């Protein structure tokens, strides 16, 4: 197990070099001079040139890359050109918002997705099966942008149950501890803020959960159906076990491995920040920040940000791989 872990961690390094190179090339090859974009209409030749020099853009591309990678190895992701803030700090100030939203969305997605999948598989071919799969297909195909606006119109305007956007009402003050507002409100015992933070979380979490929920539901259904055809299920049924117990205790646990892969992948995607959801709901997370960085060709912010998120994504998948062994004792990583 330990050898496997070390091997996987060692394999991380070339992956990260590859990612860094790809990100670096992409942001440097797209059209648009960062200096020019930053200065806009007011750019005069001298200022553009001195800004280019200051940002190191006048050096050859490979020299720029080596500098960037050398800094990364020293743990320095660089400074945002736009704000002159370290990229690490920029990310740290937005990450909690993204994680909080991701956790809320994934909770809804996993509960909803497993439920729908179970329901569909246990009533295969019936109306319930069709209805839940239609719902899952709808979840994948409805544009998030549209859904988000509809949720706002329905539940924040027509029926003003929830706030329109943001993380916390402007008039409320909650001294952050962890920067996870729900948790902070509990830790501070600030119950009004807790309700407010949850209310703010509700609509964006629902909007964000639809795609992962649909993917999880479909995967759960298909892998459950596969497992339900196995001999040991027939044996369990033959022993006279209740159908529900067979489904939950025997089938679901084994069918869960492919579903777990999907959950880990979706979790990784969402952690990268959901640009559309964050934009519509004015949620101060990573997606919006990264989008703005790309738009303004803040190449240092993009390089550092994407590299960090990609590493996180790889680590989450590693964690999922390790979980397989725990779920299914037949999976061993000794060799």
């Amino acid at each position, binding site marked *: 197990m330990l050898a496997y872990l070390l091997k996987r961690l060692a394999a991380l390094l070339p992956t990260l070099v590859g990612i860094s190179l790809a990100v670096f090339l992409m942001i440097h090859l*797209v*059209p*648009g*001079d*960062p200096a*020019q*974009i*930053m*200065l*806009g*209409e*007011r*750019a*005069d*030749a*001298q*200022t*553009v040139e*001195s*800004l280019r020099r*200051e940002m190191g853009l006048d050096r050859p591309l490979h020299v720029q890359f080596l500098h960037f990678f050398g800094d990364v190895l020293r743990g320095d992701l660089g*400074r945002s050109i736009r*704000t*002159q803030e370290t990229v690490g700090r*920029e990310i740290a*100030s*937005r990450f909690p*918002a993204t994680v909080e939203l991701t956790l809320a969305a994934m909770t809804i997605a996993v509960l909803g997705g497993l439920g729908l999948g179970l329901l569909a598989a246990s009533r295969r071919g019936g109306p319930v099966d069709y209805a839940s799969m239609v719902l899952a297909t709808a979840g994948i195909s409805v544009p998030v942008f549209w859904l988000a*606006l509809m949720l*706002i*119109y329905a539940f*924040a*305007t027509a029926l*003003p*149950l*929830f*706030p*329109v*956007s*943001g*993380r*916390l*009402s*402007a*008039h*409320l003050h909650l001294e952050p501890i962890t920067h996870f507002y729900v948790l902070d409100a509990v830790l501070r015992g600030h*119950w*009004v803020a*807790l*309700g*407010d933070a*949850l*209310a703010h979380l509700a609509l964006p979490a629902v909007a964000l959960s639809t795609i992962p929920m649909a993917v999880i539901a479909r995967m759960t259904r298909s892998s459950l159906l596969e497992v339900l055809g196995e001999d040991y299920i027939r044996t369990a049924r033959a022993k006279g076990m209740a159908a529900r117990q067979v489904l939950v205790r025997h089938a679901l646990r084994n069918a869960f491995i492919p579903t777990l892969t999907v959950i880990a992948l979706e979790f990784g995607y969402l952690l990268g920040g959901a640009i559309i959801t964050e*934009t*519509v709901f*004015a949620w*101060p*997370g990573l997606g*919006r*920040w990264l989008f703005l960085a790309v738009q303004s060709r803040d190449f240092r912010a993009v390089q550092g940000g994407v590299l960090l998120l990609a590493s996180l994504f790889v680590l989450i998948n590693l964690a999922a791989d390790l979980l397989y062994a725990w779920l299914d004792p037949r999976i061993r990583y000794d060799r």
Partner: protein
Amino acid sequence: MTGWPRLAGALLLPLLAACAAPDQGDTLVFGRGSDSVGLDPALEGDGESFKVCDNLFETLISYEPQSTALRPLLARSWEVSADQLTWTFHLRTDVRFHDGTAFDAHAMLFSLGRQFFADHPHHQVAGAYKYWKDMGMDDVIEDMWAADDSTFAVRLRQPDATFLSTLGMNFCAAVSPAAVGQHGDGFRRHPVGTGPFRFAEWRRDERLVLVRNDQYWGEPAFLKRLIFRPIQDPSVAFLELKRGSIHGLDNLSPELIAQVEADTNLQLLTQPGLTVGYLAMNMDRPPFDNRLVRLAVNCAIDKQALVDNFYQGLAVPAVNPIPPIMWGHNDAVEPYAYDPDRARRLLAEAGLPDGFETELWSMPVPRPYMPQPDRIAQAIQADLAAVGIRARPVQWEWGTYLDKIFDGQHPMALLGWTGDNGDPHSFLYVLLDKTAAQRPAQNISFYRSDPLHEVLVEARRRSDPETRLRLYHRAQEIIHEDAPWVPLVHAEQTAAFRADVRGFRLHPTGIKWFRGVRLAR
């Protein structure tokens, strides 16, 4: 009651309480399209940063609440030497920075000196003193010093009539030397000025909170707290305003104007801004080297239709490069009327009876002076086609677009300008003087007129307003005669507020002052 319902109840009650109309007391929440970049007035270059700095910092001289006429602020009075070179400012002695340190001539010397003296300990910063460079201050100023605690002096290299107006701009604001010393580059996150509000808290992309400066030297602000909230999606921002969770927002998208006007809980504010949107014809490329062709294009475009269709009426057709509210605008210049027949006759006279093929370049992004550049380009394209000019639309990504037009690769291009100090020099010299036609050029018509150059240089040197006015009127006549542009529109600024917000006024320069704003309850 079992556990679950009880827990649900515990969560639901405060949730419902939170959704009830919040009691915001003396707090005003202002929505805007994006967050500030930083809060050091000398380092920033974007409107969202200045919007906050306007309330934290103050300058020696400022503008009147609704015009660009000058008024004393941190300087009680000033005088200039006989040779028009040395300006002496007599400062207020009752002003303190938010950190309690005193504002005096040494603090002023620090604030401007860090941008000017290359050997100043705070001259090297992360970022750049953009505006100082932009406004060419190193070429304007020869030296500066504190004569005593309350007297600050600046010596210019040559007489410059625009100098005082420039001093009213954000980058010339007084910053606390103690705070800059303490925070260094971090001053952008811990701003300390002398303004009516002081900085309290900033959660990036979420909220930026200012609180009233109770030790303010002048009339204190009404509001106890002023919160800036970035909301990127304009329709979501509007829903927040309708619901009352924000009190105001600026830069309304045109399609929301009618909805604001129809809602009795809201008020719409508009103000002619210091902007111009224009169509530049590249005089280095035929046939635009021919004045008759340029006149034909001027007669072919229906500016009023652009105003009606794309600005919801919140703009005026442009006659001159500078907006009519700006001091120095020449009202006597007769606009080229929309007249397709005359345009066709002019083309025939120019030897192009069948018109010609060309390209019309437009910006890929909305700008304050042109909210829908692609649709405006389509309308202009149709107008031109009607007189025989077949213009192919061309778009590039924003940075590339600027690169290429500054390099003169376009035959015709849309662009615009926003002035910041209310002086005609900041439009005419920067955009149309022959010195600005060197690549990469701001003068994207590549219009090189010696008579205009002489007039503009003279106007900057002269200090008496009468002479300057005469010179700027003459400059606009020359430009109108040569027609390097089609000046299209001057867009108005817009803002929407809840009906109970009193005392907010839009300023021509885009400054957002909240000191006189209060909530009527």
